C-alpha cells in the first residue's frame, strides 16, 4: 500500500522513452484552431470560453500590460486542461511535478519584475517600503519586503504542485479505504459519499488555475504598471 500510493506520480516512460512529452502535448489536440467565421461546436464553445476569461482578466491592465494577454490566456488554458485531464482514471498529471511548475513560475515572475525595473525603476524600488512606516522600522521592513518578493515564484510553483498532488493522493486513499470497507458495509455508503464530494471539490482544480493566473496577474500588474 505504501509503495502503490506514490506509483501514479512516477514520470511515465515506455521502455526508456519519455512518454511524458506526449502527455504534455496531448491537451493541444483538444483545442483545434478556428478556420472560419462560424466554426463547429467545439471551437465555438472554446472561443466563447476564452472571450469570457479574457474580458474578466484583462480589463484591469493598461496598454502595456495587455501585451501579455496571449501568454496569460494560454497559461490558464494549459493549466486548466492539464488539471482536468488528470481527473480521468489512470491518467498522469504533469502539474504534479514540481519541476514543471517551477519552470512555469520562475520565468513569468522574473519577466514581470524585470519589466517593472526597466521601465519604472523608481516605482519598482519604492514597493519595498509601504507608505507611512515609522522611521526606526525601515531597515527591517525593507528586508521583509525583499524576502516576500523573492518568495513569490516559489509560492506560485509550490502552491500548484501541493494542491494537485494532495488532491490526487487523497482520492487514492479514500478510494482504497472504500474498497476495503465494502465487506464491512456499514460506513461504506458514507465513505463513498465523501469520495463523491471530494471529487466534485477537486473539480475546482480549475479554480486553482484561476488562483494561479490571478496571482501571477496581480504580481504583473503591481510591478509593471503601477
Amino acid at each position, binding site marked *: 500500500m505504501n509503495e*502503490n500510493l506514490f506509483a*501514479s506520480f512516477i514520470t511515465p516512460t515506455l521502455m526508456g522513452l519519455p512518454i511524458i512529452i506526449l502527455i504534455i502535448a496531448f491537451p493541444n489536440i483538444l483545442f483545434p484552431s478556428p478556420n472560419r467565421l462560424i466554426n463547429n461546436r467545439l471551437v465555438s464553445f472554446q472561443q466563447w470560453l476564452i472571450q469570457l476569461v479574457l474580458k474578466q482578466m484583462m480589463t484591469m491592465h493598461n496598454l502595456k500590460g495587455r501585451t501579455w494577454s496571449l501568454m496569460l490566456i494560454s497559461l490558464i488554458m494549459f493549466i486548466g486542461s492539464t488539471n482536468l485531464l488528470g481527473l480521468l482514471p489512470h491518467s498522469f498529471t504533469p502539474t504534479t511535478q514540481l519541476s514543471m511548475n517551477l519552470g512555469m513560475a520562475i520565468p513569468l515572475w522574473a519577466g514581470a519584475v524585470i519589466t517593472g525595473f526597466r521601465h519604472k525603476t523608481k516605482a519598482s524600488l519604492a514597493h519595498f517600503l509601504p507608505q507611512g512606516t515609522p522611521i526606526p522600522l525601515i531597515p527591517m521592513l525593507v528586508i521583509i519586503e525583499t524576502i516576500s518578493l523573492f518568495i513569490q515564484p516559489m509560492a506560485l510553483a509550490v502552491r500548484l504542485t501541493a494542491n494537485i498532488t494532495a488532491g490526487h493522493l487523497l482520492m487514492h486513499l479514500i478510494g482504497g479505504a472504500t474498497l476495503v470497507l465494502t465487506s464491512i458495509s456499514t460506513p461504506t455508503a458514507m465513505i463513498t459519499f465523501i469520495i463523491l464530494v471530494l471529487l466534485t471539490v477537486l473539480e475546482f482544480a480549475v479554480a486553482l488555475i484561476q488562483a494561479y493566473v490571478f496571482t501571477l496577474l496581480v504580481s504583473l500588474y503591481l510591478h509593471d504598471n503601477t
Partner: protein
Amino acid sequence: MASVVPVKEKKLMDVKLGELPSWILMRDFTPKGIVGAFQRGYYRYYNKYINVKKGSIAGVNMVLAAYVLFSYCLSYKELKHERRRKYH
C-alpha cells in the same frame, strides 16, 4: 497472382492477401511520410466527428476514452499488484 494495377498505388481494401507484405514494405517510412500518416489520421477523425454542423459530445469523449485506455496500459505494471488474489 500478378495484378494489372501496380501494388503500390492500391488502397488497403483492394490489396490481395498475398500482396500484403510487399504493400506494407512499399509504404513511405521516411519522417515526412510518417508525419503525413499522422496528419491524415487526425484530419480523418476530426472531419468525421468534430468538424460537423451538429457535433455532439461523443467526438471528444472517444478521444478521452482512448486516453484513459492508453494510460491504463502504461500503468498496468503497477496495477497488476492490486488484483484481488490470495497469493500475489
